[in-house]
């Protein structure tokens, strides 16, 4: 390896003395690495419904949807936006911004909507 020492410190060595089982033994090279369960699957496997519902668990303590009136801001400038464009579904603050909204290429429109999680994704 180049620049000897610097790189050696950068890269994780493969063998550690304090480990009982080394990484290359646990995850042999070439074999597909274990499929790890994502959070959703972990939570499903937990079977929280079998336990009393007033006991707190990971799913219980999530916050409910907000009760406060939602803050509507313009997607592009960030000012307060009382208006809504029916064609592109973006919010805008005034006529100048509206001109900009109508002149955006479709890709940008989708990205702005995706910021708000309002983009229509075709599966």
């Amino acid at each position, binding site marked *: 390896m180049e620049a000897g020492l610097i790189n050696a410190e950068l890269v994780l060595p493969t063998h*550690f*003395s304090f480990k009982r089982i080394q990484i290359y033994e646990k995850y042999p090279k070439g074999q597909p690495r274990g499929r790890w369960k*994502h*959070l959703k699957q972990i939570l499903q496997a937990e079977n929280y419904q079998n336990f009393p519902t007033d006991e707190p668990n990971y799913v219980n303590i999530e916050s409910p949807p*907000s*009760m406060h009136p939602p*803050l509507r*801001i313009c997607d592009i400038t960030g000012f307060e936006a009382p208006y809504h464009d029916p064609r592109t579904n973006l919010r805008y603050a005034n006529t100048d911004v509206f001109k900009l909204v109508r002149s955006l290429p479709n890709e940008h429109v989708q990205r702005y909507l995706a910021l708000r999680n309002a983009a229509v994704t075709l599966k």
Partner: protein
Amino acid sequence: MPFVSQIKRQTDYNLFSSTTPIVIDNGASNFRIGWAGENDPRVIFRNIVQRPRHKTTGETVSIVGDHDTTLLKYFDCSRSGPRSAFDSNVVYQFEIMEYILDFGFDRLGANGSEIDHPVLITECILNPVQSRSKMAELLFETYGVPSVAFGVDAAFSYKYNQQHGICDKDGLAICPGFTTTHVIPFIDGEPVYKGCSRTNIGGYHVTDYLKQLLSLKYPHHMARFTWEKVEDLKMEHCYIATDYASEARLFQKGTKEAEEKTRCWQLPWVPPPIEEPPSEEEIARKAAIKERQGQRLREMAEAKKSSRINEFENQLRGLEFLLQQLEKVEESEISYFLKDTGYVSRQEIESALAKVTQSLRKVKGEPKGEQAEVEEKTDEKYPLVNIPDNMLTPDQLREKRRQMFLKTTSDGRQRAKQKRVEEDLERERKNQLDEKKRLENPELYLGEMRTKYKELCEKVEQRKRLKTNGNNSNGNGMSGGVGRGERLNAAQRERMRLLTTAAFDRGKGEDNFGAKDEDWQLYKLMSKDNDEDDEGPDEDETELSRVSSRLQEIDPTFVPKPEPGPSQSAADTPRSRPLTKEDFQILLGVERFRCPEILFHPNLVGIDQAGLDEMAGVSMRRLSSKDQVLDERLTNSILMTGGSCLYPGLSERIEAGIRMIRPCGSPIKVVRALDPVLDAWRGASLYADAVQFPQQVFSRMDYFEKGEDWLRRYQFQYTL
């Protein structure tokens, strides 16, 4: 403040006895590891792993934490992005966790055959037992740790601050972290998990939002907005406004305050080398060279002309001589005589003579009576035209037809020429009138021109808009185009009609459009391409260009409006003029307080949960204690901890938010932890150092004997 990671290898591992616990704060952003009882963690690094391939050897290596990017150039990082062991605040990828622990222990100086110290590691609140058990297994099996304890980082932070007197034993801990935000009530020093509340928004989402906004606003410089850079920007410039609406209004009006609050980031930019206007001597020299070249060309042309004249004259003389000789010779001997010269008969010689004289005259540059000559030619060329048909032989008839055709075409050409001349004259006259009008009354003229320009602009724009609107809606499929009530013009309506008739099922169940010939005719009518090139540059546009050029000539302040190109104006028009310094400046105005606002309004990024201030209310509601006094005690000591609470203005905002939901006059005190980032580790270290710590840990034996159920119920006791 830029994040600093400490990854120097520690050398004093062996100085610690095997009862000293190792304290690990396993956070989604950073991994902190150190010894119990100390004030600061020894090793801190970002909790990510990259597995790039080495460019020359090709092997895959692992690199933990974030490193200097210059060192990474030896590796091909394209396939591997930085990966984290976390999915929201829960560890799920234990292979990556193993790499991280390896690195952490290694930098702490671990040697020997196993990690011989008890380990206190932090986890998220109410960690699912699967994650917990896998973590315990990892520590026990692979590292040989004798005993392990799990604790919640926010609780440690609260207890640490409580010990230092910042907050009371009853209170609320608000903990905005990297991926999630928690609110935990504490009663009698212990966290009450029943009243906990978690929203899945954190520093990660804020940075991501800022990154997206900047990329969309400055698409040219998208490559500059890397995750690390944006995070730096966020830490340096973002703040929380006390009232979002009023701040936004400040910026919208463009007040001076707003200007001051706008920060500007200048990207490195090299101005293109300006060409100096050529000096006087340069200009004179260039002009002289051009003169000389012109002179030379003219001389050459002259020489050629004179040589040609000579040639023609020689020819002329020769032919005349020949003619003279011919007269002397008798009839019968003409053919014999002429055999040598290459001409067959006398007429030929005469015609050749005529041609040569003509070209001579042309070369000499004498103006010839062209019209007269053409007319002569016509009469000469078409002798047969005027003779009626029945007197001619078939050959001559054919000849006549050809001559008629030629005559009509040349007539037509002449007529066109006439018309052009007339038009030219007309235009000249109009220009002169215009000039006169202008000279008489410049102001009025200018005003008229300007209004005319505006009207024409409007008309052209409207037509363009109709055209592109119609075409866009037709191009995107008929899904919403017509139904939205768009005013389509006649052509577009026709096209829609054709499309619907064609799409109508002919009843056979098979699509055989295209089998018959007329279908292709229909297709041609429908096709969009035909739509577009039937309108050439129409008169309005030509008029517009004429008027704008006129205005440009006479009015120094007139600036022609740039043609709005189809939907690319924002990106393209700046490129038409040379890039200036301003193009390379990134302005952070509204974004500065818009991005952290999502902590209070997760709806802005589409996450439908309560924001920070509302979460405190939710948490207190969940406690469902009817004790007013307790509630007051809770709000009296609200602690902010966690990496994302470093925004200026956060405490005021939370105070205002909680005041809205509490009855008037109740005491509210919001304090920030001594060091929001490191306090969790410090609190944990304090606990690990305490005498009662060995009671809190569980060992490998315990884990195997008591099983998973017990592990689920295992909770750390936070009161010493």
